[in-house]
């Protein structure tokens, strides 16, 4: 009992650095994501499986007029990148959406009894979503590498980076929805929405196989820009500036939505 602080000692205490952001918190947060089988199924297993089922059989189908024997690219590479984007966006959305569960169970209220700054809390969610997104990209690319997909080194790196960092758009979406709806399982209804968005973003089938009307609409949906830019290093095609605008605008919309919903949430307590 002699170790108990005196009241005078207590009054000299400081608040934690970085608002309470720390590696222990982050490690436990990430461990929780990994323990969730559903999260793993959708972020790692599904993109890898889709690649193996859909992409791998097309390994010898050339993407361009240049034959694979002449060093041309295969359709499998195109699908591989799409799946990496898909895995990363699902991972980020679910990591951001975790705030919904924590609000529903009252954990976020419990955290208000600690020095943790709400911004540090969100930062932890963002970092954990980045780690989970990276895991999804690495797992998908590893499957592609092992399966023998050929891409120039800079394509692996650039496409991987775009798929990974671009997923921040969906971290923001997850946080936005997470602060908007108090529910135990936010991914249950976000999952199908993400699948539709991925379809419109050309992740499952190239967009030019859709009717023109669908193509015109798809350009304005949130996955379109990300898909275009992620595949650009591979196809070598210049991507539309519209793709960049698409990413920036959707990131702004989701981040602003998340910020407003967050403020409403902390005000209400």
């Amino acid at each position, binding site marked *: *009992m002699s*170790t*108990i*602080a005196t*009241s005078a000692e*207590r*009054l000299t*205490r*400081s*608040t*934690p*650095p970085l608002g*309470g952001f*720390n*590696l*222990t*918190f982050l490690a*436990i947060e990430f*461990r*929780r994501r990994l*323990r*969730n089988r559903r999260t793993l199924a959708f972020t790692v297993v599904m993109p890898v499986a889709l690649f193996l089922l859909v992409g791998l059989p097309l390994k010898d189908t050339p993407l361009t007029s240049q034959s694979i024997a002449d060093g041309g690219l295969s359709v499998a590479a195109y699908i591989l990148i799409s799946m990496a984007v898909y895995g990363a966006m699902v991972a980020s959305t679910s990591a951001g959406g975790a705030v919904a569960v*924590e609000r529903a*169970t*009252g*954990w976020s*209220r*419990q*955290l*208000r*009894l*600690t*020095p*943790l700054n709400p911004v540090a809390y969100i930062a932890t969610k963002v970092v954990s979503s980045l780690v989970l997104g990276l895991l999804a990209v690495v797992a998908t690319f590893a499957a592609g590498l092992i399966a023998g997909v050929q891409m120039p080194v800079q394509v692996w790196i650039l496409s991987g980076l775009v798929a990974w960092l671009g997923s921040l758009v969906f971290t923001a979406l997850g946080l936005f929805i997470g602060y908007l709806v108090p529910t135990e399982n936010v991914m249950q209804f976000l999952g199908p929405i993400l699948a539709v968005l991925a379809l419109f973003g050309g992740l499952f089938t190239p967009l030019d196989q859709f009717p023109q009307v669908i193509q015109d609409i798809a350009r304005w949906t949130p996955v379109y820009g990300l898909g275009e830019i992620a595949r650009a290093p591979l196809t070598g095609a210049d991507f539309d500036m519209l793709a960049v605008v698409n990413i920036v605008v959707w990131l702004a919309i989701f981040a602003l939505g998340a910020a407003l919903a967050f403020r409403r949430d902390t005000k209400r*307590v």
Partner: protein
Amino acid sequence: MPSVDGLNRRMTISQSAPQAATAAVHAVGLTKRYGRVTAVGGIDLTVQPGEVVAFLGPNGAGKTTTIDMLLGLAKPDAGSVQVYGQSPRSAIAHGLVSAVMQTGGLLEDITVRETVQLTASLFPNSRPADEVLKRAGILDIGDRNVKKCSGGQKQRLRFAMALLSDPGLLILDEPTTGMDVEGRRDFWNAIREDAKSGRTVIFATHYLEEADAYADRIILVRRGRIVADGTAAAIKNLASGRTIRASLPNADEAALRAIVGVNSVEVRQDSVLVRAGDSDAVARYLLTQTSAKDVEITSHNLEDAFLALTSDDAAADSADSADDTAELSEPIRSNA
């Protein structure tokens, strides 16, 4: 023996009472409304370091709302509250106050120890995880998943988390709800052991026995107001008194209050209701110096007093009188 201990404590405390700035809790006119319902209607409260205070009242009395305001979890509509001279949020951020809340608030997908480690990581200086687990009596289930813990174990986990920052003030909101008799006793023994180190404790309860057994000071709340405030002994005195009821138009309230041993006076249109330790003195006054008729004297036990002070019947009873809580509006101060 707790009351003797409590009495000593209060005596030393009252000597240093003027230093309101260092009070563990200093609240003035705390008010919270939800729509048209007033959950807390003007609570004044000062708790000195080292006190163990029970917030006693029925469900819906405003205990939780008051605690939420002390912790900065709810914003008062009027009034102010300071914890160790700071805002509640600042006091929490500096690890000066922690709380065990009623329900929820735990992650189900991590272990007991991980929960404590996570919480510990948020404080710049915290006690070791195993130390607080031991003090809360759950060291043996450290590796258990929170999901698999019983209600009592979860409550002990919340207690362990609250101990991490070694706070000067510990607030517990109905901490033993849902526990069996044994679990409740064990939990309170742990709290009591902890309070020996001089920690200030405020706990809300609707169990009279809990307040009596573990608190130095009991604050009775009803319908968002403090209706009595004193040591357990003082509340018992109140309870051991009798109620004198008489038909008497235009009773002289001041004269009645002046009688030695009178705790409270409620003047209604044609009658008067007096609570007093010495019912004879009141009866003598009423019968000899007023035109009172139908004098009725009833005695109460502790339970009756508690019910009378806190039940909704009491409110309905006096609803027609001008001041809803006239009879109770004068808090009984133990050291008055």
